[in-house]
């Protein structure tokens, strides 16, 4: 459940930021930004990229309309925001007996609200406000979960889902940004600020950094600063905390391997940033490593705690 919600929240922030850009950024930048969004979500638009004529604003808006629809409402896109919320609701339905009434009602209300809306309504109203509202709704839901859920395995697996997803999403976004080749320095800096904004990190970054904001510094901040709730390291630390809790009463080899693996990832993430805020080594390669490991981690957790071989428990 929380994994899908994390993804929906992330998409809402990607799109809110994008719609802010649409208001005043050059067409070429917006086009670039759509590419980054799809790359960050590890997907491509169903229709392929519609290469816009950079001098034609109407053409660009048509593209944006279609692409926003695809990421928000498209039924065939498993990563669309509506599908994510529907999937979260389906998951929650299966475990409703441990999910409080308040959590369910909030999630269900978000689902029902979204069910009634189409891209046309969003487009003709205030798109940015729409995405911000959806994001706020999801974060309110996380807040209620945090404030009401009993800290048993149910809670910790919800945390694991959420933060494993976060690691993957942030790594993918930063990685996508590395791959973008901006032609002008000005755009380059702007692009990195887009990434900070999506990660709710703009304010924090301005507070802790001074001088020139080299891309590597921003990347290092997003990966290694454990005080930033959307950093990779922060998410990994919470993953470790929850893994420690769920593995408390079963210290068999598979579980220990998973826990060790996460400790390694934390060290890896931590090692990206040097004491002066600059980066060490090949950041992109490290990111890819962490991303691959995070994907594997999902499968390993599933095998260790859900789809395990019962023979070992039956002594067969």
């Amino acid at each position, binding site marked *: 459940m929380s994994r899908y919600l994390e993804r929906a929240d992330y998409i809402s922030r990607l799109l809110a930021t994008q719609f802010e850009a649409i208001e005043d950024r050059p067409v070429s930048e917006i086009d670039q930004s759509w590419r980054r969004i799809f790359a960050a979500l590890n997907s491509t638009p169903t229709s392929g990229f519609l290469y816009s004529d950079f001098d034609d604003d109407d053409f660009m808006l048509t593209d944006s309309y279609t692409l926003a629809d695809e990421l928000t409402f498209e039924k065939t896109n498993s990563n669309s925001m509506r599908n994510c919320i529907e999937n979260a609701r*389906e998951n929650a*339905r*299966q*475990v*409703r*007996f*441990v999910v409080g*009434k308040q959590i*369910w*009602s909030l999630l*269900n*209300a978000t689902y*029902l609200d979204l069910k009634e809306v189409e891209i046309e309504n969003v487009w003709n109203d205030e798109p940015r406000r729409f995405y911000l509202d959806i994001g706020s709704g999801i974060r309110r839901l996380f807040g209620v979960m945090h404030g009401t859920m009993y800290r048993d*395995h149910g809670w910790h*697996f919800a945390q694991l889902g959420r933060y494993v997803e976060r690691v993957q999403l942030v790594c993918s976004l930063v990685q996508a940004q590395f791959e973008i080749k901006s032609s002008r320095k000005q755009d380059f800096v702007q692009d990195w600020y887009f990434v900070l904004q999506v990660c709710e990190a703009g304010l924090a970054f301005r507070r802790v950094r001074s001088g020139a904001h080299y891309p590597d510094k921003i990347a290092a901040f997003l990966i290694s600063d454990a005080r930033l709730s959307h950093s990779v390291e922060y998410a990994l630390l919470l993953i470790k905390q929850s893994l420690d809790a*769920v593995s408390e*009463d*079963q210290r068999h080899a598979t579980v220990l391997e998973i826990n060790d693996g996460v400790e390694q990832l934390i060290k890896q993430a931590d090692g990206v940033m040097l004491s002066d805020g600059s980066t060490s080594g090949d950041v992109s390669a490290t990111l890819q490593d962490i991303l691959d490991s995070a994907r594997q981690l999902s499968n390993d957790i599933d095998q260790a*705690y*859900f789809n*395990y071989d*019962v023979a070992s*428990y*039956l002594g067969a």
Partner: protein
Amino acid sequence: MQEGSLFANYEVNETIYDEMFYDNGNVREHCRRLFKALDGFSPAEIASMQERAERSFLHEGITFAVYGEEGAQERIIPIDFLPRIISAREWAFLEQGLKQRLAALNLFLADIYSACKILSDGVIPTDLVLGCPQYRIQMRGVQSPHGSYVSICGTDMIRTNEGFMVLEDNLRVPSGVSYMLANRQAVKTSLRDIYRKHRVHPIETYGELLRETLAEMAPPGVTDPCIVLMTPGVYNSAFYEHMFLAREMGVELVQGNDMLVHNGIVYMRTTSGLRKVDVIYRRIDDDFIDPLVFREDSILGVPGLFHAHQLGNVTIANAPGTGVADDKSIYTYVPDMVRYYLSEDPILANVETYLCRNREDLEFTLDNLDKLVVKVVGGSGGYGMLVGPHATSSERDAYAKEMRKDPANYIAQPTLALSCSPCLTDDGAAPRHVDLRTFVLQGSTTRLPPGAFCRVALKEGSLVVNSSQGGGGKDMWVLAK
């Protein structure tokens, strides 16, 4: 009744028992306070409370699914906001009768799956029981803790001018209790002052009572049993209720693939490994419990589960094979069961029933189709039923043709004038037909939560109260004194 008030247009039908009014239009004693309080509201005020409650049902997902309706997977059961009141004296009578009835039904089940004395003594025709599709030969010799084969019984009651009568017993997987509790919560919240003044028996501890009952059903020697609720899954029409009850009891909600049987012991998968299961409150039909014993194509069940039950290592509640006792033909004999096993006169009457397997009854039924309600013996939910007076002659002809093909598959009952209770309509309060489903729990002791799911036929003149057929629900208040 004042103009513009809720009851301004209420018309009492003298021939039908009205839960709130006497024939002459005077308010029954135990309803006077409620009548006075409700009449202070305008229909619009009550309608607004009702709408709010229904919206909250939708948001909370207090829904059910109607099979075969595309796009209508989740529907709420409409709530009528005007409570029905049962006096303390009436409830005491019902309680006595319902407990007596369940005791007899459990003795009957214990008997037909062991010595079959009631059959050899000729009280009930042997072929009716042993030939019933719900009779599970595999249950022969299987004992249930405390002799309780039916731990949760949903009995549908109606009231006519002749008094209360049992319409049917639901002994397999009776549902509706979550709606009883949801309706209470909604009405209590909106009409809190009125509710408070009425000294209504609370029903909110149902989950606790159910858990205690199921704990009593644990195999001998198990002191702190692991109880689970087994559901067919999210697509089942009553999934909301399964989830709700698991939450109220604080037990795990499991599906077949969450459990396994090893050496006759049932385990469930948990995130901490396997855990032994002692009691399964199953909300899944017999056919699907165990593919090794019942339907082999069942993917909802657990292979070996029935064997574990036979060994007494786990208790399945309600036990498989209880459906034989709620078969509509065998229903006719429940008063005889009471006399036979308890040597008492039945407190609650049955509705007069014609068994079409008997030639005379069949002829009578066919001759009087326009006056009778005919039901399929193994049917439920109002499906396959003919309400003679409301059917067209071609519908009756088609139904009669089907009946002649397999008469034993049908029973007939007179079209009863179910009692009416005030319900909110566009013209203010108006009488609508109601019944009630009580929930009796039997472990080592018998418990009857003081409330019921009161079902209401929302369409004017309709006698069909089933939620799957457009019926709704209303809160029922059992007064403490």
